[in-house]
């Protein structure tokens, strides 16, 4: 498992330096803000989107799943980090990794960025399939970029992605159990013209 992870990592990371514009693109999309802010803006737009009140409510529930899912995903990643400290690729193979990024100090597994991106995408997918599928593209892109720039192993982002998806499903379950509270909050926000 570890050896497959290493092989796949170096297969991707060895592409660094081949085409400089690709390196710069990966540095841009692999950083902590670019893709995640872009995805969060789509989620923000979803809150106001809908041809009628029913359609909008479905989208707003999807936003709930995504936001609560991101919260759950971050909590699960923090718990994993407390129990399992996997070294970053540049620490595990010093001198062999082409690093295009700063040296994060937290554990490599699981990828927090991948967990957040997939929690956003799958949370929205639960309420709006079309936008959910659309958000999967940046989620995959940022996950690939994190390996490319040398800060994660492929299994770190795979673990992060699975955590993100599970967290959104957990959010759906929890919000359904908590009914009618989420509906009351939505109705309250509607009364002050925020939903």
């Amino acid at each position, binding site marked *: 498992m570890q050896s497959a992870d290493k092989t796949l990592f170096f297969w991707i990371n060895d592409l660094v330096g081949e085409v400089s514009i690709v390196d710069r693109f990966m540095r841009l999309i692999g950083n902590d803000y670019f893709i995640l802010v872009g995805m969060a803006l789509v989620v923000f737009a979803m809150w106001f989107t809908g041809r009628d009140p029913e359609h*909008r409510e479905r989208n707003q529930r999807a936003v709930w799943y995504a936001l609560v899912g991101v919260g759950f995903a971050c909590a699960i990643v923090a718990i994993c980090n407390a129990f399992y400290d996997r070294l970053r690729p540049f620490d595990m193979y010093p001198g062999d990794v082409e690093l295009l990024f700063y040296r994060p100090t937290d554990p490599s597994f699981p990828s927090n960025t991948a967990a957040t991106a997939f929690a956003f995408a799958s949370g929205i997918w639960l309420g709006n399939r079309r936008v959910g599928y659309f958000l999967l593209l940046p989620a995959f892109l940022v996950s690939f970029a994190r390996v490319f720039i040398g800060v994660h192993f492929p299994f770190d982002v795979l673990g992060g992605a699975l955590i993100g998806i599970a967290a959104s499903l957990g959010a759906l379950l929890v919000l359904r159990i908590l009914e009618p509270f989420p509906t009351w909050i939505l109705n309250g926000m509607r009364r002050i013209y925020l939903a």
Partner: protein
Amino acid sequence: MAGITVEYFLFVMICCCGVLQFVAARWKLSGISFFKRTTFGYLFAVLAIGGAFSWFFTIEDRCVPGIEGAEVFALFIASSLASFIVTASLSSVIKRKLRLSVKQHNPEEEPGLDSLRQMTYFQAVARHFKKKGRG
């Protein structure tokens, strides 16, 4: 550290203002739109989002240690709320003449974002409190 926090807050706020103008144009929410014509709304959205991204990612290298995960999340929520307050206030001032259509508005209609198709945010809130006072 304070520098990146302020820059990130402004970056998200400007982007969210752009997103709000986009959804206002797309879903005919005239009450939160700055413009009469939807084309200007779309144009504003493209300029605000494109401009904010270009500004944020060119003024400094963002591949350096910055804001922590939970802080990023909290800042995003705060700046998106700030953008809604700015948009609602500005559009309410710009579109105060929308008051004319308030009279045509069905008072029995359910509250919610759909009300902002016919009146500004401040008008909607004022109407809500008037109704409460009467009821």
